[in-house]
């Protein structure tokens, strides 16, 4: 059964803007992205928003819905309390281009900073071999859809201009670093860079990135903390340092 819901959508560009209210009919089974498309079709033809797959697999429709970074295509209307005005905003951490569209190119710059995968030599028969249990950990990280919700909610980037300073690469790229560092075939050593260039010490484990991840990747527990532990091995544990000196 259709109901009428109130939406408060931020409209504007890099210079500024304001919230605009919409009363809109919502049908059963709709997600927020459906409603935004209906607003676009019926009331605000020039509303800018980014979307692509509509299935939670491309990560394009990232925005903040009722203050939480979420994918609009995966936020069902019946999960938002009836009678409540629904606030829709662009991601806070990245510069607004227009309405709900932000410029996330900073993330691609971070990705370029990361040293590439450097595989071991092939086996004598010319094959690369990995065993399932050896790649289980890094497979989790491959689920990332690059929605950048984790980057948006990370308070180091969000609240203190960490993005401008490049002092912390952000959770998404800590996960990329972890996926390379834990890869059984990779030979590159990125641990000094994890601490010094990518800022593993900046993360204070508030786990917001894990909370908002639509792919349910355990970003903090399985990615960032294991990287911090590898940094501890290298720089803060004299016993481990001594063992390395003795045994190589």
């Amino acid at each position, binding site marked *: 059964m259709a109901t009428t819901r109130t939406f408060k959508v*931020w409209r*504007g560009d*890099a*210079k*500024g*803007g304001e*919230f605009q209210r919409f009363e809109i009919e919502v049908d059963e089974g709709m997600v927020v992205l459906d409603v935004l498309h209906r607003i676009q079709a019926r009331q605000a033809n020039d509303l800018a928003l980014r979307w692509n797959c509509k299935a939670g697999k491309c990560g394009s429709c990232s925005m*903040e819905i*009722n*203050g*939480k970074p979420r994918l609009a295509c995966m936020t069902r209307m019946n999960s938002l*309390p009836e009678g409540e005005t629904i*606030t829709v*905003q*662009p*991601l*806070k951490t990245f*510069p*607004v281009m227009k309405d709900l569209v932000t410029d996330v190119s900073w993330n691609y710059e971070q990705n370029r900073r990361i040293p590439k995968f450097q595989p071991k030599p092939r086996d004598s028969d010319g094959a690369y*071999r990995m*065993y399932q*249990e*050896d790649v*289980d*950990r890094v497979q989790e990280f491959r689920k990332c859809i690059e929605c950048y919700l984790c980057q*948006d*909610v990370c*308070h*180091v980037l*969000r*609240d*203190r201009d960490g993005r401008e300073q490049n002092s*912390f690469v952000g959770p998404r790229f800590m996960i990329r670093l972890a996926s390379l*560092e*834990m*890869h*059984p075939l*990779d030979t590159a050593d990125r641990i000094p860079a994890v601490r010094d260039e990518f*800022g593993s*010490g*900046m*993360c*204070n*484990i*508030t786990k*917001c990135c894990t*909370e908002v991840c639509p792919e349910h990747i355990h970003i*903090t*527990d399985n990615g960032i*903390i*294991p990287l*911090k*532990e*590898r*940094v*501890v*091995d290298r*720089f*803060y*544990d004299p016993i481990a340092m001594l063992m390395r000196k003795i045994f190589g």
Partner: protein
Amino acid sequence: MAPHPSAVGGHVEGFGATERKDGWWVEPAVTAVVFLTFVVYTTWAALQGVHYHWGPYLSPFYSPLLFAAPGDEAGLHHAWFGAWPTWWPSFLPASPAVLILAFPGSFRFTCYYYRKAYYRSFAGSPPGCAVGPLAGNRPYRGETFLLLFQNLHRYAMYFAVLFVFILSYDAIVSYWWDGRIGVGVGSIILTLNAVLIGAYTFGCHSFRHMIGGGTDCMSCGKATLKYGAWKKATWFNERHMEFAWLSLVWVMVTDLYVRLLSAGVITDLNTWSR
């Protein structure tokens, strides 16, 4: 000056500022209350120096009991090194708990789960996800400057593992009284305490790293103990928060139970018929 709410993106600024409509503040508030209760109770109990044992039971706040408290003759059978040392400076509190509590205390304080809890509850950094932080305009250094000591969690973990064995020993001893095997409510409470602290300790991120997480090649195609141990530690690690809370509350309950027995306030139901 705070930016106008209709500034770019419509995001409001300042401590606690958010468009979230759920009860985001409940979790940090409950955390703060439980933590403060724990800290106040532990400090009080640790400074008492009395009522920390009863029969075969020993409070976990006083275990390992290196020296019995001054004048506590009955406590000598629990003490590893006998009576309270005469060289102990008079200006320091003469309580056995002050000798050992720094070890489990530092393990909990530097724990990755607890960091999340207290950064949110006490430092407001941030108080909730997508909620304005307490010190939004100050330079931010995370765990690189004053908080660099958090990297010592590895060492705290080594001691914490040792404490699991000590508390397990206390639990086993609690089934033994004057040469007779028996069970009391206190034995069960002490056993649960050892189990919960073990579950919390063996789910520690540092522990998981040390037993195999630090390597890239878990098995290299061979069935290894390392991989099996890592998988088990991962099971506990996925429940680290739950065990952190349960063990925190239960260690208080255990001390309180022994304390009330020792003070004669309650009676222990047991098979020794005492």
